[in-house]
């Protein structure tokens, strides 16, 4: 068994644990955190699988996935905060001093 397979299994186990937190998580923010963590692990998994199959072209997918994961997390957070995805962020600091 190659080292890449071992790493891939470790990544999958870790993602399963994050999935457990997504199922258990008492608040929705826990679930967003778990989704974000699973996204990062997916980037790692894509890269490791690319090397395992001898096709490092997979790295382009990992690159795009890391950016999409970031934008997705921010979009979901913004939706939770304002209830809509429209409009800018001006006037958001109601709690300021």
């Amino acid at each position: 068994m190659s080292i890449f397979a071992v790493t891939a299994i470790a990544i999958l186990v870790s993602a399963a644990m994050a999935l457990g937190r997504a199922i258990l998580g008492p608040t929705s923010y826990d679930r967003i955190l778990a989704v974000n963590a699973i996204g990062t692990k997916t980037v790692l998994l894509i890269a490791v699988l690319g090397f395992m199959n001898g096709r490092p072209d997979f790295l382009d997918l990992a690159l795009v996935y890391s950016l999409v994961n970031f934008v997705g997390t921010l979009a979901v957070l913004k939706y939770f905060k304002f209830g809509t995805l429209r409009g800018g962020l001006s006037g958001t600091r109601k709690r300021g001093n």
Partner: protein
Amino acid sequence: MDLALDIGTWFLLLTGSFFLIITGLGLLRLPDLYTRIHAGGMADTLATLLIFVGLALQSGFSLVTVKLAFVVIFIFFTSPTASYALAQASFVAGLKPRLDGFGDSEDNKTSDDLGKGRD
């Protein structure tokens, strides 16, 4: 030379996997949201760095190495922003961090004192 690179890759990937498992464990067993953010940050930083450096040792010096470096840089730029957005959103939403009941350190302020101190 190849053997040394292989051993390096083994070491780095295994250490990275170890930190990934600890991250998953931390996500499951730490008590509240804010402490879990710290555990999630571990996978974003050191585990990513170790695994990608390990892969870079295998790829030799080519465009693949540059792409690996790009992925690491993107993750290092975006992950703290996402963590900050998450922590700030939950703090504004009124989720108080648990600061007591983990020991007897006396400099733990309660979150109410903190709110007063900020004005």
